[in-house]
C-alpha cells in the first residue's frame, strides 16, 4: 500500500483562485487534487484518478464536514473516503476495497484534521450551487449540476445539534418550532405534535421534564444527520430522519445500535475492510438491532422515517476494538 504521512507544515493547501471555464475552483492538499465539472468530481492522486457523480460527492462531503469526520470511516463510495483518528484523519483511495489492495492500487495519506477540514469546507462551499442542499432528500432540493451558479452557504453552515442531558432542559438544546424555522416535514404531517403533561411541584420546575421527541424529530430539516437528544454519561440517543439513501457507507470503529422508531429502513451491511456483503437488515417500527464494530453499512429509507442511532461516545473504544480487546459484536449468547 502506498502511504504518505504529511506533517501540517508539508500539507500544502491550495485552492486555485482562478476558476476553471465552468466557474469552479480546484482544491489540493498533500498529494490529492480535486476538480469538478458540470456532472462529476474528479479526485487525482499519484498515478491515477477517481471519479464520482458530483451530487453524490457533495452529499457525502457534507456529512464528513458536518460530523467532523464522524466515528470511524466515511466511505464516499467503494473507493474514496476518510478514516477518523480523532485529531488526524486519513484520506484514502481503495484502502477498504479488496481488489484495490490486492492490485496495490490503494493510496492513503494522513492529515491533521483541521487542515483537511479547511479544504473540505472550502470545496463544499465553492462547488455547491444555489438551490442544491446536500443535507436534503433528493425530492426536496434542486440539482447540483451545471456551470457554477450562486451558492448555498447558509445550508452548509448548519450546526450539528447536541443535547448535553436532554432536549428542552434549561440551558440545554432548545426545541424545534415553526417560529425558529423548523416546520413539520411534508412526510410527517400525521405525527402528533401534542405535548406531555408536566405537573411540576413548586420548586421543581425544570427538574420534572419531558418533551415530544417524535414531534422534535418530525421537524428536522435534514436527512441522515443524527442529533443528540438525550444522554446517560457516554450513552447518546441520536435521533435522525432518513429519506432516500444514506449518502455514505459508514464503517464502524465501535458498535452502534439502531432503534427504528417509525416506518422502515433496509440496510446493506458489508465487511468493513473488504467490502464483501455480509447481511441485509430490514428494520420496521419498534425493531432494534446492533451494527457490529467490523462492518460498514448503507441504509435505504423509501419513506421519510425516524431512526434513533444509539452511540457509545467513549473515546477509548476505537483503540480497544482495533487492538482486539473488545469483540466486534456486542453480546454473547
Amino acid at each position, binding site marked *: 500500500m502506498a502511504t504518505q504521512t504529511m506533517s501540517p507544515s508539508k500539507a500544502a493547501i491550495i485552492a486555485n483562485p482562478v476558476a476553471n471555464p465552468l466557474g469552479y475552483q480546484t482544491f489540493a492538499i498533500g498529494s490529492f487534487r480535486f476538480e469538478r465539472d458540470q456532472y462529476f468530481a474528479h479526485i487525482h492522486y499519484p498515478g491515477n484518478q477517481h471519479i464520482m457523480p458530483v451530487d453524490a460527492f457533495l452529499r457525502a462531503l457534507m456529512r464528513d464536514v458536518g460530523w467532523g469526520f464522524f466515528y470511524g470511516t466515511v466511505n464516499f463510495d467503494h473507493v474514496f473516503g476518510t478514516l477518523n483518528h480523532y485529531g488526524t484523519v486519513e484520506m484514502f483511495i481503495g484502502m477498504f476495497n479488496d481488489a484495490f489492495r490486492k492490485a496495490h492500487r490503494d493510496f492513503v495519506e494522513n492529515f491533521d484534521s483541521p487542515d483537511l477540514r479547511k479544504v473540505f469546507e472550502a470545496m463544499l462551499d465553492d462547488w455547491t450551487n444555489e438551490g442544491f442542499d446536500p443535507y436534503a432528500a433528493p425530492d426536496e432540493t434542486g440539482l447540483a449540476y451545471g456551470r457554477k451558479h450562486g451558492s448555498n452557504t447558509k445550508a452548509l453552515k448548519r450546526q450539528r445539534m447536541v443535547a448535553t442531558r436532554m432536549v428542552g432542559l434549561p440551558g440545554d438544546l432548545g426545541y424545534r418550532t415553526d417560529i425558529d424555522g423548523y416546520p413539520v416535514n411534508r412526510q410527517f404531517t400525521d405525527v402528533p405534535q401534542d405535548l406531555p403533561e*408536566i405537573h411540576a411541584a413548586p420548586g421543581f420546575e425544570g427538574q420534572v421534564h419531558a418533551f415530544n421527541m417524535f414531534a422534535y424529530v418530525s421537524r428536522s430539516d435534514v436527512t441522515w444527520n443524527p442529533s443528540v*437528544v438525550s444522554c*446517560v454519561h457516554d*450513552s447518546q440517543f441520536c435521533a435522525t430522519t432518513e429519506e432516500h439513501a444514506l449518502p455514505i457507507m459508514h464503517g464502524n470503529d465501535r458498535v452502534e445500535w439502531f432503534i427504528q422508531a417509525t416506518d422502515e429502513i433496509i440496510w446493506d451491511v458489508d465487511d468493513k475492510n473488504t467490502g464483501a*456483503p*455480509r447481511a441485509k437488515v430490514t428494520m420496521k*417500527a419498534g425493531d*432494534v438491532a446492533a451494527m457490529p464494530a467490523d462492518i460498514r453499512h448503507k441504509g435505504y429509507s423509501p419513506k421519510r422515517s425516524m431512526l434513533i442511532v444509539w452511540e457509545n461516545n467513549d473515546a477509548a473504544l476505537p483503540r480497544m476494538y482495533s487492538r482486539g480487546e473488545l469483540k466486534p*459484536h456486542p*453480546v454473547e449468547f
Partner: protein
Amino acid sequence: MGGYHTVFGSLDHYEKGGVQVIDADPKHYCFSNCFEVASKSKPYEKVAVGKNLKYVIEAIRAEGDSPWYSNAHDEAVLVMDGEIEVHLLQPDEPLVPEGKEGSVQLDAEPKGTKMGWVKARRGHMTLLPKGAAYQFRSAKPGVMLQQTILGDFTIQRWNEICQTQG
C-alpha cells in the same frame, strides 16, 4: 395532507423485519422488536434489547403501578405505546450510593418531597433525574424504552428475544 402515512408500532399491531444473512452470524446483530419483547414480558420487567458495553436500552411493559426506583445517574424513558404517568419524588436522603449504576428497585415508596408527575404518550421522552425516586403508572398496557446503565434489575434473555437463525 401530503398523502404520506407514518407507520408506528404498538402492542396491538407491529410488523417485524429481520436479518437476511449472506456471510454473518445473525446473533451478532441482536435483532429484536420492542413490542414483541413487551408482549411477552411481565409488567415492568426491564428486558435489555440493546447493550453497548455497560450501557443498556431496556424494553419495559408498563401495566398498572410499577415498584418505586431510584438511581445515581440520569436516566430517560421514551414511550413507544400507551399513556404512562411518571411520578417523581425527591427523597429525604440518598437512596442509592454514588457511583451505583443502573436503576435500583426500592422496597416501598420512600419518604421525601413530591416533585411532580408527567403524563407521557407515544413519542414523549421523560427525564428520570439523578437521585430522584420514580414510579410508573399505566392504566392500560404500554411500552417504554429506558435509556440507562446495566444494573441489578436488568434482565438479559437475548436467546429468547433475538433472531438466531438466518
